[in-house]
């Protein structure tokens, strides 16, 4: 599994974590490049469907980064988000995914080093877990088309 490079989707909230990621870039902090950032206005904007879609398209891990509790730009968005993510993690576990593939962390705008550490750790965790266990189900009608 040494040469496995995971594909990771990182959802960052506009006000804290995205600025944190920006800070990490400006400060030229070194970190793995396995993640793709998607900026959302708030961590509560991340519909669980986005995350499930990321997994269904073959993401090996999804990380959600938001403002620290009590720091949300919209006052209570991250409290909502953490409840949803917790429930989603239960759902993913029932599907058979390792719940560690979905991570929720709080990174503020000034915490560039925490962003670096979080991403580095998460990439390491996912590398240890290996590629996504997702089974791509092909529709029966598509299967026939492929055979033709």
């Amino acid at each position, binding site marked *: 599994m040494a040469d496995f490079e995971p594909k990771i989707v990182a959802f960052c909230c506009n006000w804290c974590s995205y600025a944190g990621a920006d800070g990490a870039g400006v400060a030229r902090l070194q970190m793995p490049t396995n993640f793709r950032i998607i900026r959302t206005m708030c961590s509560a904007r991340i519909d669980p469907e986005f995350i499930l879609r990321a997994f269904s398209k073959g993401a090996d891990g999804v990380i959600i980064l938001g403002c620290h509790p009590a720091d949300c730009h919209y006052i209570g968005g991250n409290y909502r988000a953490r409840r949803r993510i*917790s429930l989603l993690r239960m759902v993913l576990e029932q599907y*058979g995914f390792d719940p560690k593939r979905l991570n929720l962390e709080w990174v503020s705008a000034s915490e560039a080093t925490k962003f670096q550490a979080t991403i580095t750790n998460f990439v390491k965790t996912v590398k240890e877990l290996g590629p996504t266990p997702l089974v791509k189900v092909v529709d029966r009608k598509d299967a026939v088309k492929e055979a033709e």
Partner: protein
Amino acid sequence: MGWWADRKKKKEEQKAAQATSSPAKTAAPAKAPVSEAAECSADKEPVGLAAADLGPLLPGAPPNGKVNLAIYWAAGCGGCDVSILDTNERILTISDMANIVMWPIAVDGKEKDIAAMEDGSITVCMINGAVRNSENEHMVKLLRQKSLIVVSYGTCACFGGTPSLANLVPGGKDEILDYVYTKVPSSAAFQSKYNSAKPRIPQTSTTVPEGQLTLPVLYDTVYALDQVIDVDYYIPGCPPMQESISHLLKAVADFAYNGVALPPKGTMVGITSKTLCEECPRKKEYKRITEVKEPYQVDTNNDKCLVDQGIICLGSATMGGCGAKCTRVGQPCRGCYGPSPEVQELGSSAFTAIASLFPVTDEDPTMGEDKVDDIMSQIKDPLGYFYAFSMSKSLIRRSVKEGGQ
């Protein structure tokens, strides 16, 4: 009262004005069954989709001869077949309009009869049930080839329904067969009594002195109908309401007798444009819940929203059209009408809403994620609950195995 009441009032006035200015529009509700009929009846207390006006009994055979109608039963419970009988005495006049060439539960048409027909000679084919095995797949593909219009009838055909929960068995068909024929107490007792050497599990083909016998091959994944064949119309519901059937019947009858164009392909028949909450008569007070309850644990108040009373109801994420039959009698919505058109899957939008009902506490800024997990783990079996009717149409679709590759 407030802004909402003003808005509602304005909308009602607009509707009333529309109804008086264009009476011709209401005469053909079947052409746009999705919204028009429902909005006309939603004056005081919304009751879901109104039935289409089918007029007097059908006037004998259509001018161009009877149409052919086929109804097929794939992986479903048979409730959909029974629901067709909900059309009451109307069912008797259907035979004036149509030859029923296949209906396994009621008439004698066989697979070879269908195979002998010309392509496209069946006008309407209604298929209920999910596609679970090779026989289902063969029959639905055959019927698709012979039919002009295929209607995906019922929740199992539209979204996979309850049979699709079998997708969550990690071992697939082998595990299911093994469990059902050797582990279930009654079959375990049978196997140990009669087949103690080696349990006997049905095989897909067996050679007996008279020749070879075959059984359909079970699939690991349960498919919704439109994942196997092209589908023209969808009628969701477990089972579909009589109102939905009347809209389809009206559309077909108009087509057969008067040559009125059929609704566009992909139309969902029998749904309204809003979610179930719009039709539910219960009052919502936007309460937060701290405890999840089952309906039997609560002495339910018949005027208040079930969610306010701690019962998980999926009405906010489910398409309306059923008239809120379940919530009217104190049972929560389980989502058989499927997701709203804006989202792909019902489960995630339902639990997004439900998760937000848990109140933010004073401890929230300081508590860790473990505590949040404790709060949320009150919801037992979220996957089974939120995806009870739509697993085939969910994004992940079947269970996975870590490290199994």
